[in-house]
């Protein structure tokens, strides 16, 4: 046997570990800030730091910066050891590391600036999207290069999950990010309305599935057995776990769009597969927990195991709750409420957070060749982390169920009991405080960890190049198809995984994208005018969709509160769709014409003046800033390319149209009863554009009808 000597690259592991810990703190800190912004609206200071702009920063930071770097940390450590090989290329490793940090920094700069596509977890604008794709491919090349030159023929289960992660995230990111650029900082989704919603939640759900779950399952399959020093409970189960999970997960996306204008069959399919998901998810969860059978005493000794056990337990809870929430009757209540926030934080704080902490506590002493600086401190972290999580999650369950019940409660006479939406907001303010406190406690724990790991690194010496040796794989003789042949063939495995992953997406998305049934070409609504389009872009920029939905479900209480339920025709020209996913404020789909221009003017200036106790921020800058008139034409041309039927005349006359529509609103504001100087505006002020947009929401259908009648006459 020809034994080869080689070295593991621990520097890249250390770098990703530092990035994970630091971005984790940043992401959680932003989370704590926005948690306090809800009950204390005065914390929304300056246009750059409002809730609407910081929430995407929080989600992006914890998902892509904290968990993302956590994934790479775990992959770079375990893949080298599982393949008995150094990473394929040190250059690629470095490019991957710095490229990813560059993406995070650009996100941290652009999101507060309001450069956002508004699609959840895909808010970053197109140049950053391209950078993400490039860096992701670099990661993939580095990973597959390592797999191909491995010295261990059989690929361990963790590697399968890494492969699936790479494939699925590539497909999801590319197809959801397809957009038509207007400038370097602005683009429109190529999909409109219902299609955009389907693609977005196919992405959104599978960002959870293939960015927050499958790579972490890979980490679980490696680090849990390593930390416990026991083999995984059942290798057989892990085979079934893998194939069924990657096949089923991709189908579940439409459960985010139940009772919406999305075709019914897609909703039903989403629910069916979501419920089916319980089986593989719990198979994996039990496989992890049962690894500790007969060795539970080690959990008492090893703090990293404590974190891992709670992580896997939270995974089990979240993957039972998720399928239940996808049932239509449960979803009717849970959707749009803080219940969703409780659910995702159960998974994010518990599963992703705690598993990352466990892995960090295990890896850092290993690569620094020392012991953990303080077990006691780590134990304190464990307990206050758990406490913070409970504070957070329980508060959000109470909040979610309270608001959902209040929204739908009718009096015996059949009218809404809480007609004023504000009543349902003030009721849950105490829960917002509790949640924020929970977040602070959890963050404190993470800070303790950073200190502890820093001290650990200080007392040890980094094994930059860890020496190892293994026999080279012998050239394959024509061995008969013996056991484990599939898992020894990386390329075939890759191809089969691609198949398993894309089938669901194809079946669900292809019909709605190819068929005209789901993208009505008949002009049920007219396209937005130049000014409304500008207003809509301000709505996107300020992140209004983070708190306001634009999708009314066919329930009595919703149609009574918000107007006629939404249909596909409502959204034909919506690039991107703005359905939102949470109702911290009321739905706005049919807001147009309900209130006066003056009301909106005052409301945006200081919401509390017109809505006592409102928790919405003040938007002072809308009254100072002017719309960028020069870009409107380009925007209209870009939208025409993706199917919005603007005529050449409309585009050429955009300036007149802007001025006229803006001036009408300005005149109306002046003529309102109050002191005219109080409602001062000019036609090109941002506030005027926003009012134009808000006033047309849900109104365009009538306009078309009236126009038609005029023409017929």
């Amino acid at each position, binding site marked *: 046997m020809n034994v080869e*000597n080689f070295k593991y690259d621990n520097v890249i592991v250390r770098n990703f570990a530092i990035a994970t810990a630091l971005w984790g703190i940043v992401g959680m800190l932003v989370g704590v800030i926005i948690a306090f912004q809800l009950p204390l609206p005065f914390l929304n200071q300056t246009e750059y730091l409002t809730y609407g702009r910081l929430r995407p920063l929080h989600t992006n930071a914890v998902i892509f910066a904290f968990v993302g770097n956590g994934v790479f940390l775990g992959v770079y450590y375990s893949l080298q050891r599982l393949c008995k090989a150094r990473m394929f290329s040190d250059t690629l490793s470095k490019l991957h590391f710095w490229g990813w940090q560059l993406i995070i920094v650009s996100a941290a700069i652009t999101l507060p600036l309001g450069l956002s596509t508004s699609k959840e977890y895909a808010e970053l604008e197109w140049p950053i999207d391209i950078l993400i794709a490039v860096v992701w491919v670099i990661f993939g090349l580095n990973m597959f290069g390592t797999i191909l030159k491995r010295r261990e023929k059989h690929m361990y289960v963790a590697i399968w999950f890494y492969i699936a992660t790479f494939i699925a995230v590539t497909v999801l990111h590319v197809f959801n990010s397809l957009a038509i650029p207007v400038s370097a900082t602005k683009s429109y989704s190529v999909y409109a309305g219902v299609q955009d919603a389907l693609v977005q939640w196919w992405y959104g759900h599978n960002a959870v599935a293939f960015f927050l779950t499958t790579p972490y399952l890979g980490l679980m399959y490696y680090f849990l057995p390593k930390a416990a020093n026991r083999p995984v409970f059942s290798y057989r189960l892990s085979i079934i776990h893998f194939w069924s999970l990657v096949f089923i997960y991709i189908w579940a996306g439409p459960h985010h769009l139940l009772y919406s204008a999305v075709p019914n069959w897609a909703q039903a399919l989403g629910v069916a597969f979501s419920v089916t998901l319980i089986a593989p998810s719990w198979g994996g969860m039990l496989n992890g927990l049962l690894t500790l059978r007969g060795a539970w005493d080690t959990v008492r000794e090893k703090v990293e195991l404590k974190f891992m056990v709670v992580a896997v337990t939270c995974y089990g809870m979240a993957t039972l709750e998720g399928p239940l929430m996808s049932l239509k009757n449960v979803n009717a209540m849970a959707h749009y409420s803080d219940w969703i926030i409780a659910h995702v934080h159960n998974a994010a704080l518990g599963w992703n957070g705690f598993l990352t902490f466990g892995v960090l506590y295990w890896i850092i002493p290993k690569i620094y060749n020392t012991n953990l600086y303080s077990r006691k401190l780590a134990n304190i972290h464990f307990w206050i982390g758990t406490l913070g999580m409970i504070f957070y999650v329980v508060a959000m369950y109470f909040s979610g169920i309270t608001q959902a019940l209040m929204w739908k409660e009718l009096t015996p006479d059949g009218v809404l009991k809480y007609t004023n939406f504000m009543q349902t907001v003030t009721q849950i303010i105490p829960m917002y405080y509790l949640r924020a406190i929970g977040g602070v406690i959890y963050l404190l724990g993470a800070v303790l960890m950073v200190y502890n790991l820093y001290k650990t690194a200080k007392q040890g010496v980094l094994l930059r190049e860890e020496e190892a040796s293994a026999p080279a794989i012998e050239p394959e003789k024509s061995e008969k198809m013996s056991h484990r042949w599939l898992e020894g063939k990386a390329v075939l495995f890759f191809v089969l995984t691609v198949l398993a992953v894309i089938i669901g997406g194809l079946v669900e998305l292809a019909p709605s994208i190819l068929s005209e049934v789901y993208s009505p070409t008949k002009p049920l609504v007219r396209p937005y005018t130049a000014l409304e389009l500008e207003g809509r872009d301000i709505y996107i920029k300020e992140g209004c969709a983070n708190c306001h939905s634009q999708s009314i479900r066919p329930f009595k209480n919703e149609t009574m509160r918000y107007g006629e339920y939404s249909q596909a025709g409502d959204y034909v020209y919506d690039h991107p769709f703005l359905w939102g996913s949470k109702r911290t404020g009321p739905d706005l789909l049919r807001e147009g014409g309900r209130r006066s221009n003056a009301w909106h003017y005052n409301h945006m200036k200081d919401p509390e003046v017109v809505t006592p106790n409102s928790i919405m921020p003040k938007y002072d800058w809308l009254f100072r800033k002017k719309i960028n008139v020069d870009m409107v034409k380009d925007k209209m041309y870009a939208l025409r390319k993706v199917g919005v039927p603007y005529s050449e005349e409309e585009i050429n006359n955009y300036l007149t149209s802007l001025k006229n529509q803006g001036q009408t609103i300005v005149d109306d504001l002046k003529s309102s009863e109050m002191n005219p100087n109080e409602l001062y505006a000019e036609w090109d002020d941002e506030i005027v554009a926003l009012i134009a947009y808000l006033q047309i929401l849900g109104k365009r259908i009538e306009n078309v009808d009236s126009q038609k009648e005029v023409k017929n006459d």
Partner: protein
Amino acid sequence: MEIIFLLICISVSVGLLFLMLFIWSVKNGQYEDCHTPAMRILIEDCKKEETDTKGEKLR
């Protein structure tokens, strides 16, 4: 509502397909050795202990 019959047919055939794939994989020996892969990852690279003189100033 008729779509339900189509859906049932499709679901049953997908289920059968997976059952066939499963039976094939069992017969093919995919599940024959489920012990060594799980054990192998636990074996540390033995060389590490001996050559590690750099990090000597441990506690």
